[in-house]
């Protein structure tokens, strides 16, 4: 079920009620686990079997990995776990894609091969819970943390409904200890959680769905060449939509968990105020980028084996990160473009470091002293990020190229598509998002809220709630569910 639905409101009220009853902690955890299964089954009940399978395999394999001393057996156990987790992911998410590419390859080399088209349904959130369980297995293999003691706690760690289908991608040490002792939200946590839930729903329902999605969809689904204005507005609309949709989900998830007394990691930190691309990836989908850093970039060598290896690790991480988002070469291109941006940034940084070798190198471009120059760099980063969204959102390279041509005026006059109202919506909302990110880049929304008087918080909060009600846009799925 989605957070922006009546079903979720009813579900959440029941869960809050049960969680605040004077029951034993074990009973409350069982309630949360059952609720999480119901939350997941509300999409497609049979897929809950996959979740169980993944949970059970990783719990027992993880424990065995931790205690196994025989190096060969340990490796075998890791392989079993990887096959179990990645096998499911590859089959359900990449099965059709792999087959299509295999067929294309066969046809290219002269074999006339036309298999029946598979009809594989993608289980919601499989990429997220696979990464959640995968990091546990790898941690056990490397003895980075202690194995989870009970199957109940492990199942709840994997399945806990706020993060289950679209993150934040949690690590065992971030969540498992929270299941060990009774937890109930304090009044402060409850009201903070409700405020975050409202904010997340506002981002998703009012801004992403009601204001931006139709414009982004019409531009990306248009078969015609478009005027430059329409093309840019469509890309800006998607840029706003993807942030508001996904960050909205994460904000809801963090808020919901907080209402139950649990703390989930932050997933977004005003990414459109990023100065440079390293900074962007420290602010966008933070739990994925740190996952990729710890379980892919560093094992590939990171920056410890010379420049060439660092550049290779960067690009490989970004390409695989792109592929994680979807079974399409356009996602790989999206990751590749980010990889190129990071290469260029790293190259410039290395050159600057060589020129000023007395200074400590830093991972991100330094924030310039003059705020306007910093803001210019942030805007430049934002504009370049917009180019990458073209590949992320377009279904094919043909469509991506067509849109890029329109954006950069490489075609004659295109066919105007967007209404004046649609252009106005995007032209007002997207710059406001960028400005908001800029002014909030070094703080957090709750910190700002607590600086306001209680009366002003009420005015802002009630405006958010009223706008959600007024939008009347309940029930649409979140973009990241398809990943």
């Amino acid at each position, binding site marked *: *079920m989605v957070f922006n*639905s*009546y079903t979720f409101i009813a579900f959440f009220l029941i869960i809050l009620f049960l969680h605040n009853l004077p029951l034993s902690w074990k009973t409350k955890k069982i309630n949360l686990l059952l609720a999480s299964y119901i939350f997941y089954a509300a999409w497609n009940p049979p897929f809950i079997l996959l979740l169980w399978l993944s949970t059970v395999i990783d719990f027992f394999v993880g424990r065995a990995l931790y205690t196994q001393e025989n190096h060969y057996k340990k490796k075998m156990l890791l392989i079993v776990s990887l096959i179990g987790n990645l096998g499911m992911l590859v089959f359900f998410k990449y099965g059709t894609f792999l087959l299509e590419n295999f067929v294309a390859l066969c046809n290219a080399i002269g074999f006339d091969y036309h298999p029946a088209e598979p009809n594989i349904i993608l289980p919601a959130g499989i990429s997220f819970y696979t990464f959640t369980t995968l990091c546990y297995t790898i941690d056990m293999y490397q003895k980075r943390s202690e194995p989870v003691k009970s199957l109940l706690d492990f199942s709840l760690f994997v399945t806990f409904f706020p993060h289950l289908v679209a993150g934040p991608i949690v690590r065992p040490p971030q969540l498992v200890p929270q299941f060990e002792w009774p937890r109930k939200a*304090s009044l402060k946590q409850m009201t903070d959680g409700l405020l975050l839930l409202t904010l997340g729903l506002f981002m998703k329902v009012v801004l992403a769905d009601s204001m931006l999605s139709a414009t982004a969809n019409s531009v990306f689904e248009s078969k015609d060449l478009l005027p430059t204005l329409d093309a840019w507005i469509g890309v800006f609309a998607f840029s706003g939509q993807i942030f508001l949709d996904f960050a909205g989900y994460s904000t809801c998830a963090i808020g919901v968990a907080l209402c139950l007394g649990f703390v989930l990691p932050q997933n977004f930190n005003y990414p459109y105020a990023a100065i440079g691309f390293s900074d962007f990836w420290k602010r966008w989908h933070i739990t994925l980028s740190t996952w990729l850093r710890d379980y892919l970039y560093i094992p590939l060598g990171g920056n410890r084996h010379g420049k060439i290896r660092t550049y290779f690790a960067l690009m490989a991480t970004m390409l695989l990160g792109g592929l994680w988002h979807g079974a399409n070469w356009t996602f790989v291109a999206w990751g590749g473009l980010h990889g190129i941006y990071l290469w260029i940034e790293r190259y410039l940084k290395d050159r600057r470091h060589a020129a000023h070798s007395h200074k400590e190198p830093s991972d991100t471009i330094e924030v310039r002293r003059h705020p306007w120059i910093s803001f210019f760099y942030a805007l430049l980063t934002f504009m370049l990020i917009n180019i990458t969204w073209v590949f992320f959102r377009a279904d094919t390279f043909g469509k991506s190229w067509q849109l890029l041509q329109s954006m950069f005026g490489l075609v004659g006059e295109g066919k*105007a598509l967007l209404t004046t*109202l649609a252009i106005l919506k995007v032209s007002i909302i997207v710059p406001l998002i960028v400005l908001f990110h800029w002014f909030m880049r070094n703080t957090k929304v709750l910190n700002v809220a607590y600086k306001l008087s209680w009366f002003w918080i009420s005015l802002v909060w*009630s405006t958010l709630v*009223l706008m959600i009600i007024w939008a*009347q846009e309940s029930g649409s799925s979140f973009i990241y569910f398809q990943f």
Partner: protein
Amino acid sequence: MEKKSLLKSALLTLVIVIFVIGSWEIYLRNKGIPISYDDGPPLWANNRAMVYEPLDDAVVFIGSSRIKYDLDIPTWQNKTNIHAVQLAVEGSNPRPALEDLANDPNFKGRLIVDVTEGLFFSKSGPLDKTLNENIKYFHDRTPAQKISFFLNKPLESQFVFLNKDYFSLNAKLDELEIPRRAGVFMMPLFPIEFSHNTFERQMFMTPEFVVDTVLQNKVKANWAFFASLGKGAPPMPTAELDAIFKSVKVATDKIKARGGEVLFVRTPSSGVYLQGEKIGFPREKYWDKLLTYTNCPGIHFLDYPAIDHFVCPELSHLSRPDAIEFTKHFIDILEKDKNWKLTNSNKLN
């Protein structure tokens, strides 16, 4: 971070939200605006799920807006004790719905297809979009979406402001009617008095609309706008038209082969609209050929004196009193002329 909570703010927020929503609702009710259900995919899918009732218990309707206005469902159900499952979608070509039902092996019931020639005989394209989205939603809908629909129903039954087409944020922004850019299509707006929708998916115009020629002229202007879009377009090539006939026959044959029944109906239009339709879609080339080609029975309103005289306030749809009259006569024609058994002794739930 501060240790104080936001409880005071939360309570004031609750008061403000209840006050504003309550005031808005009272204001709308005082204006005499009736309850209208959101006719989106969830409501359509809810009706679509009812098509599996036994042949004697339900009749399924597909088509465009005319059958949604012209078939008065309470009258139909009172007179026949048979469910009227309304699946028509305004402004749409009903062929995708026909194909969906034909390809559903569990549908073995009775189907009435409303034919508005300009839509029924159109090429696949934008006119199919809404209906195709509804069909996809029905086949893909999740248990959570079904529950949300049933939780939403009591709310929509009580609150006038929950009318997405007229009172949502986007609807209000659309009402600003910001001038369009040259060459950009903008869907014209219909007055609220023309477009109310019941839970059974019957549309109706209010009594104010029936007497207000200004409102009627607004809708007539919209019809003229839609007609202008097709002006100058070449007639559909014979091969394409034949392909449509063929696809319709394939679909109706599938339903009949399973024991189902299919009947076509041409509901009333009037004035210049009807004249234009007669010129654009000559009866012998479209309606008559449709019946002959598919070997299905049909009811054309001009063939029956009991239903040939209605005057549509905005040229294309019946007012509610006329819809009641039309429905009574329509049932009579179905029973007497088409030998449909339409009286069910079982009481409807």
